[in-house]
């Protein structure tokens, strides 16, 4: 295989220089080949600098204190919110900062639980949020545990019933089964936009329409899509989407929830305490409007500012360009893997409808052993069940090896991976 970097309009070599970690050596003084961006992405210098700059020059509590630094910190925090909101085409008021995407999804599920419990004890809540025994929540079989376990928990606490859209052998949702799974009993549908294991992309429009047809809330786990392709909230037809900052070049410790103004208005708070109240007496409290209603406590402001810088960096490159580049890398990877005897690819092998996350097996070898030999060559891939155990059951495997790319990966990274796989077979004498 020859490299085809010249066909790409982006200068990946130049982009790589923006990421300090990519210049470090790993095991055996090998160059780091980072192919685990679906787990967490690396950070460009501008993000590290923005976060450091916050601590070095304006660190103070945001939304509290009337002094100069507090004003600067608050401005920086809210500017970041504006930048990120604009990135997915929503108003700032529609963007809630959380700890991570898992917390964003829990925010949603707990809002239903809290509304259901509050109604039981006479508080006034929007009836659409109340779950009764026999109500149904629909997910899919390819969910990350983060978009499965919170809904299982909600069912256990309310008597609602969890259903799921099965997946096909190609790792796509089996939409033909959807109609029989959706009824007026369906109150919530929550699916992932792109599988973190198989890279398959969900037909959001189709699922969204089905949700609307029965008046169900429609949520999307967008962790794997927002970092890698243009996403416009208004075009998804969703009531809310959740994703994380650290998978899109931002710092760890900050996640996001984008929602319709209506949903944010009717949902009761998830975590309560300081910052999210209007008035407090010993008897009772009233709450501020969203997004702050959902941001109790001192927020991770430096992380928000770092994420704002990450989004500006992504916008400068252009999400369409990023998507195109990754489609190109995915094709190289999938075609290359197909050409190696003894490799099984899980999920779609057609680059048209998949993201750049590719799971595969080396026949007869355990992913842990595969990952170990690749690591010895400086190649970082993920091995395991990828927090999506039901997919493993469906594929009838214990675990898979997963390689995933981002904007800083180039053709030679893929080439090194493919050579690495040959080396794994050689090492264990399987060929």
């Amino acid at each position, binding site marked *: 295989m020859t490299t085809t970097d010249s066909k790409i309009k982006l200068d990946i070599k130049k982009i790589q220089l923006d990421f300090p970690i990519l210049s470090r050596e790993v095991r055996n003084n090998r160059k780091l080949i980072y192919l685990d961006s679906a787990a967490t992405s690396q950070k460009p210098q501008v993000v590290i600098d923005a976060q450091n700059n916050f601590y070095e020059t304006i660190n103070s509590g945001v939304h509290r204190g009337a002094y100069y630094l507090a004003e600067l910190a608050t401005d920086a925090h809210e500017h970041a919110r504006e930048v990120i909101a604009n990135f997915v085409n929503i108003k700032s008021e529609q963007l809630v900062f959380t700890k991570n995407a898992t917390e964003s999804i829990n925010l949603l599920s707990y809002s239903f639980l809290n509304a259901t419990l509050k109604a039981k004890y006479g508080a006034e809540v929007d009836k659409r949020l109340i779950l009764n025994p026999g109500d149904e929540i629909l997910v899919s079989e390819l969910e990350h545990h983060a978009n499965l376990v919170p809904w299982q928990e909600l069912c256990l606490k309310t008597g609602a019933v969890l259903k799921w859209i099965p997946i096909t052998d190609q790792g796509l949702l089996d939409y033909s089964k959807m109609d029989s799974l959706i009824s007026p009993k369906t109150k919530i549908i929550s699916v992932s936009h792109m599988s973190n294991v198989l890279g398959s992309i969900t037909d959001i429009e189709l699922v969204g329409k089905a949700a609307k047809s029965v008046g169900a809330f429609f949520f999307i786990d967008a962790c794997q899509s927002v970092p890698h392709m243009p996403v416009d909230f208004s075009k998804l037809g969703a009531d809310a989407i959740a994703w994380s900052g650290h998978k899109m070049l931002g710092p760890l410790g900050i996640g996001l929830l984008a929602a319709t103004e209506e949903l944010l208005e009717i949902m009761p708070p998830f975590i309560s305490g300081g910052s999210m109240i209007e008035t407090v007496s010993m008897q009772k409290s009233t709450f501020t409007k969203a997004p702050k209603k959902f941001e109790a406590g001192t927020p991770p402001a430096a992380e928000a500012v770092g994420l704002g810088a990450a989004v500006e960096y992504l916008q400068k490159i252009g999400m369409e360009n990023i998507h195109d580049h990754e489609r190109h890398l995915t094709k190289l990877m999938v075609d290359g893997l197909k050409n190696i005897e003894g490799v099984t690819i899980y999920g779609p092998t057609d680059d048209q409808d998949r993201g750049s996350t590719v799971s595969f097996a080396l026949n007869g070898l355990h992913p*842990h*052993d595969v990952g170990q*030999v690749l690591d010895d060559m400086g190649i970082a891939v993920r091995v395991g069940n990828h927090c999506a155990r039901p997919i493993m059951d469906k594929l009838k495997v214990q675990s898979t090896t997963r390689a995933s790319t981002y904007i800083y990966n180039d053709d030679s990274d893929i080439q090194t991976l493919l050579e690495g796989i040959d080396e794994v077979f050689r*090492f264990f004498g399987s060929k």
Partner: protein
Amino acid sequence: MQLSNMYQEVILDHYKSPRGKGLQSPFGGEAHHVNPTCGDEITVRVLLSEDGKTIHKVSYDSTGCSISQASASIMFEQVDGKSTEDFDKASNEFLAMMQSKGIFEPNEDILGDGISMIGVAQYPARIKCALLSWMAAKDAIIRANGDK
């Protein structure tokens, strides 16, 4: 290649030709252990003597990586037919070795082929793989004794 410290020939040999694999009856205690990060699983059965001091029979069935499979095979060799006191000695020695970051002089009289796992101790992500069978066996013995 540094990797050959971990994947020593004797480990690959146990992996490719596991000793004592396959569950057997009767048994006095059984334990099923899982490594949740990779999904590796093992079931260990033990049959103890009346006084609980001798392991008449240990058997196991497992799926997983080369390290966890080889470790189970080695554990079988070291434990089958021995006293529970010997088991405790061996499992303690093995645990100490795995927690040593590789700075350890393992006792071959106690661990047998288990000394080959010293290289694994240098890779924190793989320590669990090596310990899985030993921990399951320990549990199975406790259960067998509990049933008496």
